[in-house]
């Protein structure tokens, strides 16, 4: 299945503005997707996870334009065509 990942601001500079990722696993979770992205470079890993492998608390995750509760990422099963957005803390106004 194909998942579209969009990244913004500081994350755009690390992950690129958009990537289409192919997940081979049948019931891949959002957590698994983040681990895959993190595995690509030390910069990517450290942007997403702390030294203990915990998702950094300031990261905002959106799935199909709806905010995801960070405690649920391991339980969220992705669907083909899902759009995931990665936000650093917002700073508008």
């Amino acid at each position: 299945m194909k998942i579209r990942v969009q990244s913004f601001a500081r994350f755009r500079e690390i992950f690129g503005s958009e990537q289409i990722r192919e997940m081979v696993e049948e019931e891949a979770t959002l957590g698994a997707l983040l681990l895959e992205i993190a595995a690509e470079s030390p910069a990517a890993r450290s942007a997403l996870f702390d030294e203990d492998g915990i998702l950094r608390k300031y990261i905002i995750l959106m799935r199909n334009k709806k905010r995801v509760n960070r405690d649920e990422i391991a339980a969220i099963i992705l669907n083909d065509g899902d759009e995931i957005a990665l936000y650093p803390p917002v700073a508008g106004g």
Partner: protein
Amino acid sequence: MVVTVTQEDFDINRLIEERKASDMGAMVSFIGIVRDDGIERIELEAHQEVAVEELEVIRDEAFAKFPIKSVDIIHRIGDLKVGDNIVLILVGAGHRREAFEGCEYIIERLKERVPIWKKEYTPDGERWVQGEHH
């Protein structure tokens, strides 16, 4: 009424004139401006579609919480320099109290939730502005 995220600047006086109505005794505006923190310019970036949706939700919350009559929100993106307008929130109401409260509610929620980011360019390099809620 307008809720938008745009490269274009806004004309506050024109918007006020357009929005005035006979039952409105008060209008409160908040204008965010690029401050000189030793910067040459800033760049604003948004997840446009989500930012507009989130601003519309905040506007609807303000209407539900306060007896206000109009809300306009214009947030700029792109390259801005010191003194340029960043954001305009214009709230019209029967009386001043709800106009002030509505306007403050909107700017505070905007700063917490709306996916917009700023990068500052200084003579020493560039830096992403830390949000207040991280």
